[in-house]
């Protein structure tokens, strides 16, 4: 089973963010790096889904006043998630072998 494109983006940005990976930051990270608008609903439901699949784990963090006393939920990529990312990358790289030049010429 391969990861969907958006799932990959979410997982990768969680890895990039390290300890700071909670909803707001994940969204900002994806938007900053891909230049794509991310719908909050899509992000949160994807987070729920990949957590249900065991690709990420989450812990409840501290609550602050600016959040109305509601705690943050920090995500981390699980070993299974890392494995899925690796498999995805490998598959994609294999597929890309030998065509990068051709494609860049066309581009």
């Amino acid at each position, binding site marked *: *089973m391969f990861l969907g494109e958006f799932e990959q983006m979410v997982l990768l940005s969680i890895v990039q963010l390290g300890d700071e990976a*909670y*909803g*707001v930051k994940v969204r900002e990270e994806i938007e900053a790096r891909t230049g794509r608008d991310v*719908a*909050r*609903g*899509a992000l*949160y*439901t994807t987070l*729920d*889904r990949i957590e*249900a*699949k065991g690709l990420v784990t*989450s812990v*409840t963090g501290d*609550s*602050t006043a*600016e*959040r*109305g006393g*509601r*705690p*943050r*939920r920090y995500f981390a990529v699980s070993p299974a998630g890392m494995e899925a990312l690796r498999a995805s990358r490998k598959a994609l790289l294999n597929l890309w072998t030998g065509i990068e030049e051709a494609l860049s010429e066309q581009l």
Partner: protein
Amino acid sequence: MNPRPVRPPVVAVWLLERLLPRSARDAVIGDLLEEFDDLGVGGVPARRWFWAQALRLGGRYSWFRLSTRFARLTGRPGWGEPSDSAARMRGAAAEFKLALRRLAHQPAFTTTAVVTLGLGIGATTAVFSVVDQVLLEPFPYRNPARLVILWNRMTERSIERAALAGPDVRYLQDNVTNLSGVVSIFATSTNLTGEGKPVEVVLSWVTPNFFEVLGVDPVIGRNFRASDQVLVDPGVFEGQATSERPLPTILSHSMWLRRYRADPAVIGRLLHANGQTFRVIGVAQRGFRLHMPPDRDVLAEADLWTLWPFPLADMAPGPDGSMVALGRLATGTSLEEAQGELDNLTAARRGSSPGHAAVGFTIEAVPLVTETVKHVTGPLMGLFAAVILVLLVAAINVAGLVLARGTSRGTELALRTALGGSRWHLLRQGMLEALFISVAGAAVGLVLASLGLEVIRTTGPLTVPRLDQLSLDVRALGFGAGLTGVMTLVVGLIPALQVSHTSPAATLGGRAPYRRRRLASSRRVLVVLQVAASVMLLVGAGAVLKQFARLIDADPGFSSEDVLTLRVALPFFAYPTMTSRADFFDRLSDSLQAVPGVEQVGGVTPVPFSGDSENARSTYTAEDALEEWGDRIAIYRPIMPGFHASVGVALIAGRLLTNADNAPGTDPVVVVDRRLGESLWPDGMAVGNSLWVLGPHFGLQSGERVLAEVVGVVDDVRYTDPTRDDPSTVYVPHRFWSGELMDYTIRTSGDPLSVAAGVRSVVARLDPELPIRDLRPLGDFVSAAKAPTRFVLTVLAAFAAVALLLSAVGLYGLLVFSVRRRTHELGIRVALGAEPTRLVGMVLGEGLGLAVVGLAIGAALAFGLTTAAAPLFAAQPADPPVYGVVAVLIVLVAGLASAIPARWATSVDPVTALKAE
């Protein structure tokens, strides 16, 4: 970070708390609040932003939750769960196949259900099409609801719907403010010559604002303009009544197609008719016609429109049916306001003109749409109500079938439930089968509906507006599709509900007596409903049948046998004076009399039941009773002297009119009908007395009067409705008042149409350019007068028959079911020595009992409805004999439907029956 204390919308937060799942709630709301805090803008924009985010999040999560729940229910993979769409497709295909196979294995059930539904859907869709396209679809004019017909009401003459004369139209155009345009239209028929074969056309004379007021632009060319108006000095009217300049004209679309093969170069062409030249300036929209009440039909059928070349003030009212005035309500004006202004204007007119005061001149503005369809609204809505009843009966039948089938499938369903078939799965199967049945039913219905529409289009009464344009359009198809959907639900949900009540243990254990009993009682209710609906339809059909019988029995006072009618409409350009018209009519009469096979020639305006309104009315007064009776109303009919003899109107006293009475320069004499004679001279001394006849007839001006001697009394004749008396008639020799129209009545020695060729050649010899309109037997008019009632009767009777048949099938099915259910009990009874007659009585009793209950309910409903709605549908309520006949019919049919199951009951073999369970 942000010192401003911007508070997030509390309600939005509250909403999110409700919509988000607990696991995600705090983190998501917290994130949103954090972003809100960091937003850097305050006040309304920030709050609006928060609301937008909250709604989108909430929506997303709700959808997510719903789809997950649905997935769990269906056993399908939910959102994000692994799925195999190929397997799913295979599963769906298998389910389709299974449903089809099951239906194919029960051909009797499937066929009955499909045909029954097809009948219901087809009939309802067809009638819906008629109602929709005749009554509901707006006329193809701009804002048609704002158009009004302006009727000339003469309150002192009891005349309701006369045409507005030219001078009054002119007066309105100059003075009215609540109408944005007033149009006058009148129609003549004429022969178009010049290019190719002469062709008879209906020429509609209009004021230049005609198309503008209707709000319709031509397809090619242009509309009339005020500057197009060519005015001919009315002084030349008596001599050469033509304009030297061509009159601008706009062709109808069908004329353009027919005669000019849609050639755009037709613009600018010159046409000729009776010495007048016309120049084509435009072609009207496809299908454009003036929608008119049926008695103004000649106005609706124009082939070309052209401008009236004389001052409006000189436009004399022609034969009533050929003239009308229309107006458009000014923007922001209500009908009441417009009527109020009209009342003021007509009051002023009455004040300044004695002629207007004498007739009680008023103008009534009636919405064009209402006026055009009002005569069919009642019957059509009645038919629609009837077809809904048919649909109800059909739906009940199918529901009953499904219920019965469900019972026989009880074991199967129970087994499947016990083996873990989910309720959803069984429901889906049921819905699939229902879908197949109702879609097949819809296909049958579609065929039936288009057949039905074809029949209605060709046999429907011509007085129904737009009937000739009927088609199964998108709206009708949509309606049919909607019906099909509803039927699917009805048919599909019943087994589903059964499943939900199925207790596998009880069913597989062999007994589910309670459930079956409840099922039987719900079927009983359905059958009673069916019978009730059938009774209502039968009572309705019976009432119309009685009405029709009255129509058949009615004696119109004349005989249409072997009478040919010929309508002659003289073009006034060619026959401008009364004398020239009278001379022509006489010459034609003499020539017709010489045609072989012709026995008697007469003429009248208009011929009975021709759909034209009364020609004109005037007042009469008895000379020696002026003080006593005052003014009264009679209809004046100019006739050719042979009229009464030609159609067999009985002479009661004195003599009929002769050619000598019609000679120029004689003193006016008249013949009156029996009622008039008796009311004026109760001692029977009408003949020899005289009537004062008031102008504007007999060449008299309005207000003048002349004495006319009554030389004969004839039997009463009904001209407009075979069942109703018209106002009394005074028959006048036509020379004293010749209009442009004459309907010749030609009695023949054999088949009336056998002299048609001779009649045509005589007319062509006298005036080659004269169009021949309506050369047809008088009997056609007589049967046409009965057509609307016959049509309603036929459709209603068909509906009632279908409903009765379906009810019989429903009752039969129920009793078979009931006998089967009681096989065990019947077996015991037979074993214990029960008399077969008792068993028959038991089953018959059940069937008849249900029928009688349905009969009572249906009769009560029918009585209540017809009493309340009869005026609405312009019908008479049914009388006791109708109810009696319906009751006998229902009991008979119910008895027949019960007889076979009753026989089965006696043939139960106790051994088999007791072994069966």
